[in-house]
């Protein structure tokens, strides 16, 4: 699946997008974040805040949302548009 990062999450991870396959046992957004944090200090830093939001296939998704079948998962800070 494709992972997208925006705003300071993107800056901390050091890239805007990447392709990744989560290991077996990672089935929710919350578990995906926990796995990403294990991938290195830049991910640990990017995802250390509880405020990180996620979207699955362009729809807002909660930490317990299932990621099975997702093509595009995005992570970003709380929105500040308008």
């Amino acid at each position: 699946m494709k992972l997208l990062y925006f705003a300071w999450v993107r800056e901390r991870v050091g890239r805007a997008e990447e392709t990744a396959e989560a290991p077996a046992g990672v089935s929710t957004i919350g578990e995906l974040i926990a796995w990403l944090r294990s991938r290195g200090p830049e991910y640990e830093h990017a995802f250390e805040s509880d405020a990180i939001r996620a979207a699955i296939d362009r729809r807002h998704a909660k930490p317990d949302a299932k990621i099975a079948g997702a093509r595009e998962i995005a992570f970003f800070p709380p929105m500040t548009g308008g």
Partner: protein
Amino acid sequence: MAVRVQTELFDAGRETADLGAGHVDAGAVVTFTGLCRPNADSGAPLEALTLECYPEMAKEELSRIEAEARARWPLLDALIVHRHGRIRPGEPIVLVATLSPHRAAAFAAAEFVMDYLKTSAPFWKREETADGGAWVAAKAADDDALERWSRR
């Protein structure tokens, strides 16, 4: 019904006139224009805002908000335009316009769209000042504003 996400400047008056031109039956038009203010949240003079955006999701999310507004109020038409990219103080950032036979619906729908958009449309503001750049923090007041609509 239209939603646009763009970097280009827009003219709120002309956009609204164009929207109204197709609707002789509208009795009420409400517009909200959000402008780039001259100061950063810290109070320092602002050189510019840069709005980052997840454009594909932004269009879908704004369309969902507009559809929800149409489901709640009798709107003849609505327009949402949201810019991204670099925006200077005084420039418009967002326009919401609602057309309805009656004023209460036009007001409520425009305010609803803005309250939702603030907390759910994927845009992030970064302030440029003489000291460098800083991401704008989300405001608790925006969450409170949104909360009103779920109580109804």
